């Protein structure tokens, strides 16, 4: 078993185990903590696959952004010291239905994938020079500058640079930007200080 496989199984096991822990834990903040670990392990899987940009984004968006808000919300709205959630039977059925259908889609898709999809990916750190035959490409393993800069490629692909050969996602990107801007303005509008007219001293009424 190569190091790459070992690391993969470790991270995958961590992600799955902590995902289960989220389901079975009763305490809300503990749930959130297990979710952090599960998502962190997923980010580790991305890093392992050589998708460092996606991995860093996963850490930043989900672990560092969304979940902070979640924990924040839980803490601000919690009534007692230890909030615990009991899942009712109906929720179990509903969750099993939704999760099961997602699994039913994902498993066949994963099985249908080509095990060695692209020779281009052989240069990815982790797949090539962490395996046993690292003597030939020892040069590449200590020269990380030669590994693909994923961030640049993603950026170029997004704007549809001629080198990437794709049409680019500039229009959806712009649409999402506008959407987010609208959401931001809406949030700022909702959170604005309500301006009340200063209560004036009305003397005529007193008289």
């Amino acid at each position, binding site marked *: 078993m190569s190091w790459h496989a070992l690391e993969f199984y470790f991270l995958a096991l961590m992600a799955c185990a902590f995902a289960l822990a989220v389901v079975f834990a009763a305490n809300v903040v503990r749930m959130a903590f297990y979710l952090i670990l599960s998502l962190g392990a997923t980010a580790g899987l991305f890093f392992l696959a050589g998708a460092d940009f996606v991995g860093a984004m996963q850490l*930043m968006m989900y672990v560092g952004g969304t979940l902070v808000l979640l924990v*924040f919300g839980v803490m601000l709205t919690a009534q007692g010291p230890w909030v615990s959630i009991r899942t009712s039977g109906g929720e179990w059925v509903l969750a099993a239905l939704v999760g099961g259908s997602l699994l039913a889609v994902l498993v066949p898709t994963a099985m249908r994938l080509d095990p060695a999809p692209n020779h281009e990916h052989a240069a990815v750190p982790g797949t090539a020079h962490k395996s046993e035959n690292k003597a030939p490409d020892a*040069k590449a393993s200590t020269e990380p500058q030669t590994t693909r800069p994923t*961030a640049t490629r993603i950026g170029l692909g997004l704007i549809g640079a001629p080198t990437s050969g794709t049409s680019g996602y500039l229009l959806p990107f712009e649409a999402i930007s506008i959407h987010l801007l609208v959401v931001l303005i809406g949030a700022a509008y909702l959170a604005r200080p309500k301006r009340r007219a*200063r209560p004036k001293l009305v003397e005529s009424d007193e008289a």
Partner: protein
Amino acid sequence: MLELFAIPLVKIVVLIGALMTVTAYLVLLERKMAAWVQDRRGPDRVGVPLTKIRLFGLGQPLADGLKFLFKEEFTPRHVEPLLYTLAPVVTLASALAIYAVIPMGDTLPLKIGASGANLSMVVAPGCDVGLLYIFALSSIAVYGVILGGWASNDKYSFLGGLRTSAQMVAYELPLGLGILGVVLVSGSLDLGKIIHQQADSGLWFAFTQPLGLVVFVVAAFAEAARLPFDLPECEQELVGGYHTEYSGMRLITFLIAEFMHMVTVSFLIVILFFGGWHFWGLTGSGPVESWGQGILRIGVLMAKVFGVILFFMMVRWSWPRFRFDQLMSLAWKVMLPQGLLNLALMAVLCEPFIAERIGSRHWGVFLLISWAVALLAWLVTALVQPSGPENSPQRVEPSI
């Protein structure tokens, strides 16, 4: 095997050992400095143990460390045991893991292994998303605070945790905006490449982006919870903070992590805005050729970082603490617009100037425009005062 495991492991061991020692002695330096500012003597008694040799108090960090080690590890009965224990670990781990991508110099001409590459002074060299990684980890650091405050199951700790995490989340935005200008101009997220770019042009980003520098430094102070922004743990007014219920090793883990954040942002300030290891006419700008050059670059970087840390310490004893509402309005009403302005300015200036590389004949215009805009922005901020003082006791209208 050697290149994959041995070299990074040795680097990690050396780095963490050095960081811990340096942190301990920086704390001593900070206390000495506080004493100097306040016209006291500071710690000067502890020297070689069991003798009368005082040694200017250099034994103090050692004594402090031992004290914390041998202190009773007291866990109050009302805490959440799992998260209470994990919170300091999360904080310290995320603070230390950041150093994986922070360069401690350039390279040393030491050939190890089959490849003929120089020994890089980074644990993870060539990390293409280095800055993103730093951001991801610094956003994880918030969890230690939130979880520690919550797991303590105590009102003061809980409120302290909320206060701290609100501050950190708020200042993450200006911190990112300050960096984005640099990323835009340098076109890379790799810290090593950003330094090389500044060395090549000879023009540090501090000169070309004064607005970004100020935004970043202020946000860095807030993220590291240094004095003008040290609401997370102001013992005098707000009963400690998220670590009120902690003692012994767990407390010092929190404190070390917090101090380490200051060292981290000092490194970032130097690397992003003050040219890293580069100094004009001293270090050269190309790849390292000799041992002397390599060591000189390490020395220059460390000297700059030390200077920034001294600045942090001076500020600590020069400024009073902000109030929480002032802190928030500074983040959202002053730093955020200035950061956005800096980003927009760099995006506009990038197009005509970067296309033909700064350092060519037009960089004077670039400097002029960016400084003019920065001065204008500061002037407008000073005139408008969006974070208005509102300090004066106000006369309450008598309600009838």
